[in-house]
C-alpha cells in the first residue's frame, strides 16, 4: 500500500500522530484479540489437551460442533430458550424504555428524583449482583407456599391468564405477553441506559416542531407518529444493538454459564470454544439482520 503520495507534509505528520494516539488499541487488539480469536476458532475444531508443557491441539474436524448439537442434552434447549428470551425481552425493553423516556421528558414535580431511580439499576444491578439476586430461593419458595395455601393463581395476571386461556383465544401469543408482564422487573432494571439514550434524543427535538403540528391540527398521537418516531429512529438502532449485546453478556445467561463451566471446571476447551462460537455466530446474524431492517427505516434529519 503506497500512501506516500496522498499523505505528505503536514498530512503525513498528522497521520503519524493519529496512529500514535490509537497505538494502544492496535497493540491490545493484536495481542489480546486477534490471536485468541483465531486460536479459539481453531480450538473449536480440535481436541485440546492441557499438559504441563503447554497446550496440545489436535485437529478433529467438526466433532465438537456435532457434539454440541447432537450429543449434548442441554445445549440445544438452552440455546433456543436463551435466544427466544433475548428477542422477546429486547422488544419489551425497547417499548418500555421508549415509553418511560416519553413520560420523563414531560415536566412535573420530582422529575429529577424519578430519573435518578430509573437509572439506579445500571449501577446496582450490574455484574455479579444480578446473578446473586436470581438465586433468591427464599422468595420463590415463599411464593410457591403462598400460592399453594391460597389455591393457586391469585395474582392479577394469574387470574386474567386463567380467564383468557379458558376462553381459548390464541394461547401461545398470550403466554408470551404474560411472560413479559411477569418479568417486568427484569425489563425495568435492564433499561436504564436505553432510557437515557432515548431521553437525550427526545430533548433534541425542538418544541416549535410540535407547536407547528399542533396549530395545523395534529392530534397528540399523530405528532408522536410523524415527529417523535422519525426524529429518534437513529437512536432506535443504537438502543436495539446495545440491548442485544447487553443481554448476551449478562452473567445470568444460561448458555454463558454452561460455556464457562465447561471451560474452567471440566477443562474441556475445545467443546467450550465450539459452543461459544455457535452462540456468537447466531447473535451476530441476529444483530446484522435486525439492524439492516431497522436502518432501512431510519430517518436522518440533517
Amino acid at each position: 500500500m503506497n500512501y506516500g503520495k496522498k499523505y505528505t507534509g503536514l498530512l503525513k505528520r498528522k497521520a503519524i500522530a493519529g496512529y500514535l494516539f490509537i497505538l494502544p488499541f492496535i497493540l491490545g487488539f493484536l495481542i489480546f484479540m486477534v490471536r485468541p480469536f483465531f486460536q479459539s476458532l481453531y480450538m473449536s475444531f480440535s481436541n485440546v489437551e492441557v499438559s504441563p508443557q503447554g497446550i496440545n491441539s489436535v485437529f478433529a474436524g467438526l466433532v465438537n460442533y456435532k457434539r454440541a448439537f447432537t450429543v449434548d442434552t442441554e445445549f440445544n434447549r438452552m440455546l433456543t430458550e436463551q435466544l427466544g428470551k433475548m428477542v422477546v425481552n429486547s422488544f419489551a425493553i425497547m417499548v418500555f424504555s421508549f415509553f418511560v423516556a416519553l413520560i420523563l421528558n414531560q415536566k412535573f414535580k420530582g422529575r429529577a428524583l424519578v430519573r435518578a431511580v430509573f437509572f439506579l439499576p445500571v449501577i446496582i444491578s450490574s455484574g455479579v449482583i444480578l446473578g446473586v439476586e436470581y438465586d433468591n430461593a427464599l422468595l420463590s419458595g415463599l411464593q410457591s407456599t403462598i400460592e399453594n395455601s391460597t389455591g393457586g393463581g391469585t395474582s392479577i395476571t394469574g387470574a386474567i391468564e386463567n380467564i383468557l386461556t379458558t376462553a381459548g383465544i390464541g394461547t401461545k401469543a398470550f403466554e408470551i405477553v404474560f411472560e413479559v408482564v411477569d418479568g417486568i422487573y427484569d425489563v425495568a432494571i435492564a433499561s436504564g441506559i436505553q432510557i437515557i439514550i432515548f431521553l437525550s434524543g427526545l430533548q433534541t427535538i425542538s418544541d416549535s416542531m410540535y407547536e407547528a403540528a399542533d396549530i395545523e391540527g395534529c392530534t397528540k398521537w399523530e405528532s408522536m407518529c410523524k415527529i417523535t418516531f422519525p426524529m429518534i429512529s437513529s437512536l432506535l438502532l443504537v438502543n436495539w444493538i446495545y440491548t442485544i449485546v447487553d443481554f448476551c453478556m449478562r452473567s445470568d445467561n444460561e448458555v454463558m454459564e454452561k460455556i464457562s463451566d465447561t471451560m474452567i471446571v471440566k477443562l474441556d476447551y475445545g467443546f467450550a470454544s465450539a459452543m461459544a462460537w455457535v452462540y456468537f455466530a447466531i447473535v451476530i446474524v441476529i444483530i446484522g439482520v435486525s439492524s439492516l431492517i431497522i436502518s432501512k427505516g431510519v430517518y436522518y434529519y440533517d
Partner: protein
Amino acid sequence: MTKTAVNKKSEKTFWERNRDSGGYLLKKKVSDIAYRIIRVFLLFGMCFLILQPILNKISISFMAEEDLYNAMVIAVPEHFTTDNYQLAAQFMDYGKTFLNTLLVSLSIAVLQIAVCTLVGYGFARFEFPLKKFWFACVVLMIIIPPQTLSTSLYLHFQYFDILGIIKLLTGSALNLRGSALPYYLMSMGCMGLKNGLYIFMIRQFFRNIPKELEEAAYVDGCGTLKTFFRIMLPDAAPILTSCFLFSFVWQWTDGFYSKTFMGNVSLLARQLQMIADRLDHYIVFTLHDATGASVGYTNAIVATGTLMVIVPLIVLYLFAQKGFVESLSSSGIKM
C-alpha cells in the same frame, strides 16, 4: 393589586369560558387532570418496582433468624439485630477486601479511561490510512461477547509469552494466572470490560468539538500534544467523568473478568459469590450443626452481603448523579 385589577377586567368565571368554548375547556381540563393522576400512579408503581428489592434487603438484613420464618413479621424486624452484618463482614473479610476492591477498581478505571481517551481522540480528530478498518475493529470488540475469546485468553495467560522472548530468557513461559497482571495488561490495550463502548462515547464527544478551536491552537503555536492536553482535555471533562464513573462501578461489580483474569485477588464481587458456601461451612464446622444453613438464613446473609457491596456505589451515585446521567445525555450518542 394590579394583578387582581387586570384579572377583574378580563375575568369571566371558568364556567362562562367553558360555555364560550363549547365544552372544550372542561373536557381538556378533566382529561389533563386524569392524565396527571394516572402518571403519578404509573411512576410511583415503577419506582417502587425498582426500589422494592433494595428495601426488602434492608429489612431482611436486620432480622434475626427466627423473624425470617415468622409469618407475622413482614417489613419491620421483631428481633432487631446487626449480627448479619458482622457475619457477612467476617465471611467476606470486608475491611481488607473493600480496600482491595477500591484500589483495583480505581486503578483499573483510571488506566482504562486514560487509554480510551487517547484512542477516542485519535479516531475523532485525525485522518490516517486504514482508519475505517480500525474503527470497525472497535465496533467488533463491542459486539463480540468476551466469553467467546475467554477460553483461549485464559490459556494465553497461563503460558504467557511475547514472541518467545521470555521463553528464551528463563527457559519456560510465564504463568500470569493467579495475579491481577493480565487484567492490567488488557486494560492498557483497551481490552477491558466495555472498553469499546468508552472509546465510542469519547470519540463521539471529540468529534463534536469545532475544528476552528483546534486550528486556532495550532496557529498560536501549540503542538499536537499541547493541543490535546491544554484545549481538548479540559473540554471533555464531563464525558470523561461519566466514563470514569461507569468504569469504576462496572469494575466494582464485575464477576466475569475478575474471575477469569484476576487470579486470586480478593474482590468484593467474588467474595459475594462465595458467601453462601462460607455460611454453610461456618455453621457445620464452627457451630457444629450438621444440617447446615437454612434457606432463609442463607438468603438473609446473602442479602446483607449484597447490601454491603452496593452501599458504597449508592453513596457514590447520590453524590455524582449528575456525572452519570447528564454528560451521557449531552454527549449525543448517534450513529
